[in-house]
């Protein structure tokens, strides 16, 4: 193509959108809702990751102990654990020590001031010998310590991460399904434009317009719809985020973060791609050369 006039294709794409206003609006709305689901998922997983990263200790296993545990019980537990060959070391961290570690964190310091007491638990951090952290060994430890009422909970590292990972996968699958549906709906509305322009397309072929020239306005139509949908979903997401932050305003240690700039770009890009592929699917089916 000699003169490639991008302005023409954008103009035609916009004309196509306005030719069928109600239908176009519906498809933009569908795209934006699908993207909203995707972006809510991004918002949640990003925020949970921040929390987990901040809270999870580096120990292989963390044993939470009751508040008023005696020195002798701690020593007894320590001995019991170090007895096992696969354990490298066991470290007791009292709630006072934990508080000292945490006091660099302003949010938590504030929280503790408000509570007037130390909410942190006494813990035993258990470190395994390299490569010996197997589920059998962990089960063995659980069994061995089960008769101690001084133990409140045992958590192995990666457990939270694993739950998070599973829910992340689920969220992603759900997002992909909705995005795919949005693409189909967008593709359908473009089909309507193609059908309503049958004579126009016939004449264009007749007078020697190239297939690319005939197809591009539909592709720009799709991309414009997709990107508009993306912006709409970002506005909705921001409103949601704003509402969340207001309702969490009294809470000192939960700060909801907005999705990152890269994620915003990702959503806009996804919107554009949905529209683009929707158009291509339709053109493959309805525009034969």
């Amino acid at each position, binding site marked *: 193509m000699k003169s490639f006039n991008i302005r023409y294709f954008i103009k035609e794409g916009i004309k196509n959108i306005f030719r069928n206003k109600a239908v176009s609006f519906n498809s933009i709305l569908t795209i934006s809702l699908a993207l909203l689901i995707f972006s809510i998922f991004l918002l949640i997983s990003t925020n949970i990751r921040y929390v987990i990263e901040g809270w999870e200790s580096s120990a292989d296993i963390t044993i939470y102990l009751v508040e008023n545990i005696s020195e002798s019980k701690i020593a007894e537990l320590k001995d019991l654990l170090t007895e096992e060959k696969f354990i490298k070391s066991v470290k007791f961290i009292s709630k006072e020590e934990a508080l000292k570690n945490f006091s660099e964190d302003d949010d938590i310091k504030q929280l503790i001031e408000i509570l007037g007491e130390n909410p942190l638990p006494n813990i035993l951090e258990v470190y395994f010998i390299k490569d010996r952290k197997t589920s059998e060994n962990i089960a063995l430890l659980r069994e061995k310590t089960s008769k101690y009422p001084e133990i409140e909970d045992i958590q192995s590292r990666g457990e939270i991460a694993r739950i998070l990972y599973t829910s992340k996968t689920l969220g992603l699958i759900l997002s992909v399904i909705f995005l795919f549906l949005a693409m189909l709906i967008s593709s359908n509305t473009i089909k309507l434009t193609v059908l309503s322009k049958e*004579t*126009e397309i016939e004449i*264009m072929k*007749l007078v020697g317009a190239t297939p690319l020239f005939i197809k591009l306005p539909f592709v720009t139509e799709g991309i414009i719809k997709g990107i508009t949908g993306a912006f709409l979903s970002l506005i909705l997401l921001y409103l949601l985020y704003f509402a969340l932050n207001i309702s969490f305003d009294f809470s000192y240690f939960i700060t909801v973060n907005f999705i990152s700039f890269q994620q915003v770009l990702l959503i806009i890009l996804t919107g554009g791609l949905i529209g683009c592929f929707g158009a291509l699917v339709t053109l493959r089916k309805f525009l034969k050369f």
Partner: protein
Amino acid sequence: MIKAFHLYQIFEKNLYALKDISLEIEKGEFVFLVGPSGAGKTTLIKLFYGDLIPTKGQIIVYGRNMVRLPGKEMPYLRRQVGVVFQDFKLLYDRTVFDNIAFVLEAIGKDERRIAEIITGVLKVVNLSSKRDVMPHFLSGGEQQRVAIARAIVNDPVLILADEPTGNLDKKVSEDILNIFLQLNKKGTTVIMATHDEDIVKKLRKRMIKIEEGRIIEDTGKTE
């Protein structure tokens, strides 16, 4: 301009739209394609602008073998050919000007030149005053003139007209025919399908008569 060798167009088993058509049309000729409805005139014209590919046989249009022409090149061949139909095929949601401008845009013509070209072409078909009118408000003859303007706006070397006067009365038909004759005088090859043999007899141009998919008469090149 056109050379055809033993063309067959078979649509379904035993449905022969064209049978063994061979012909040669030279540059600058004016040819009438006559015959009753359903004789195969439209099918033959479709072969001339590549809307159909013959089932059998060879056809060369403006030096290009239509059977072997890659799809990519078809648009560029079509820019050399202007086609006019009985039912005009105008776009009724835009003015006369935009109906023609649309063609120029479709082949990527420079926007600044479009107005200039259209002014010229509307003069040829004598429609300068209707430039900004919607096609609905035009008579049949005027609509066909818009269609002709659209067909010739690229300066085609070949004009194909499929029953262009089929929907028009006698007086108007003559006007349309005169436009084609004028274009032919300037060197454009014109092929016009019609079942109105009166027009043909009066003009004494080359006439190819088709019946049931076969050429039954060809008066050959005149003048």
